[in-house]
């Protein structure tokens, strides 16, 4: 039985070796114009904290936080309707509309937003495409399906008996929501938010296409340095930063999960 785990662990080991390569290159000297690398250095990590890149990190964190907050507010009503509707047709309709973009892939979804945010469809009073605002809209749209599913899973675990009890004791619907439903769905809110925040931190296609080079996030820096300037050591340091931030956040999800259980 235990041997059945071996092939999967081989795959994971390969994945780990790839990440190991990242770690190795992040402490090697970049030789401009060459894929050869020099000796050991900490210069790449010092570079990450250079003022111009510190700005990118700040933008990334700010955009991720704003995305998480807006996604949470927009996803909650949909998740609530999905978890609580009595009609199986409504449930199917919401589920299909929620899951279809989830399954359509990043390029199709982002291209769609290029059309909407460009002035071809709607004439926007303020520029949207190639601005942080536009990227934010794209990121929220991108995160919605994940958030809706995580929240709906949490809300469907709440026994409606609690809400009925509160209502029968005279609480008005708004009070029932704020004092009973919302606190009980907190585990879903926390894990959904952390996952969306972590994913947005390392999002690539949305800032690359909707930002048009004018909006830089950590992932676009990794791609520009790694694939366009062939600065693999410099790109590796940034990629490790994204990885480290993700791991810290998702360790948070694990802890939130254990506390809820």
């Amino acid at each position, binding site marked *: 039985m235990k041997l059945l785990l071996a092939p999967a662990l081989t795959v994971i080991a*390969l994945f780990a070796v790839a990440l190991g390569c990242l770690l190795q290159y992040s402490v090697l000297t970049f030789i401009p114009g060459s894929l050869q690398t020099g000796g050991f250095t900490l210069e790449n990590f010092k570079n990450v904290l250079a003022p111009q890149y510190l700005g990118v990190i700040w933008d990334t964190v700010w955009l991720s936080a704003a995305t998480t907050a807006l996604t949470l507010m927009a996803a909650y009503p949909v998740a609530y309707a999905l978890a609580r509707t009595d009609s199986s047709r409504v449930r199917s309709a919401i589920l299909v509309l929620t899951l279809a973009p989830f399954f359509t892939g990043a390029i199709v979804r982002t291209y769609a937003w290029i059309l909407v945010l460009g002035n071809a469809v709607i004439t926007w009073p303020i520029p949207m495409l190639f601005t942080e605002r536009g990227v934010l809209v794209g990121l929220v749209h991108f995160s919605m399906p994940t958030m809706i599913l995580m929240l709906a899973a949490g809300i469907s675990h709440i026994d409606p008996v609690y809400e009925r009890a509160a209502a029968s004791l005279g609480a008005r619907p708004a009070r029932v929501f704020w004092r009973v439903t919302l606190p009980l769905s907190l585990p879903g809110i926390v894990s959904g938010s952390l996952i969306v925040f972590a994913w947005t931190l390392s999002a690539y296609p949305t800032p690359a296409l909707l930002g048009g080079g004018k909006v830089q996030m950590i992932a676009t820096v990794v*791609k520009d340095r790694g694939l366009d300037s062939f600065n693999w050591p410099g790109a590796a340091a940034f990629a490790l930063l994204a*990885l480290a931030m993700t791991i810290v956040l998702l360790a948070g999800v694990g802890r939130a999960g254990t506390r809820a259980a």
Partner: protein
Amino acid sequence: MMLKAIVAGLLAFMTLPTVVVIAVSVNPTAILSFPPSGFSLRWYENALTYPQFQRAAVNSLWVTVGSVALALPIGTAAALALERGRLRLPTLWATLLLSPLVVPGVAAGLGFLILAASLGMIRSRAVLIAAHVALVLPFVVRSVWVSVRNLDATLERAAASLGATPWRTFRRVTLPLLRPGLFAALLFAVVVSVNEFVVSLFISNRVTEILPVAMYSYVVNYTDPTIAAMSTLFITATFAVVWVADRFVGLGRVFLHHR
């Protein structure tokens, strides 16, 4: 009533880009306009006859078939081991198997690129398939694991006590009982692999690139609605798959908890 209106509005926000893409894809002129100024299928013709998309579609087929064919048995075996293997530290192994899910695409992509370069296999299809196997494995393990957990072991013991060999028990009892989980795993694996973009961008070139990467290059370089036509084909296929999956498996059972 208010909730209904809000939910409808939010669902409209989620669907709006899809509607716009479909409308633009049948627009007769190269200048993007909405609503379309007529009806034309020229961008579909363009998309289907563009040589780079044809080549990328063949690559996508190879990479997806190859990686799913590997990941499905590997993931199923792992799910059985996780549930039945009486492992010490089961959560540690589970976390390890699901870990590719949380690694940022740019980190995995650059890592695989450097690994491929140091093996002298830069931009080889094998590296692309290996990366895809790792990326879809968590979805397979998760889907099958749920099915294994819900499986009634007495049925297998009954088969064994009636004289079936372990292999026969597995083939005639265990595997059929796991069918919903395997179907969900297949669905997820295909969808994830077909749409994978960031990691593939790092480890492919014009010859080996898969469809999302080819589409990305097109978006960056051209502005005509060919991509809208290509996207519409993707969206249609996806809707069909999700709808069929909901009809036959019931997606609600996969994602929601029912008392």
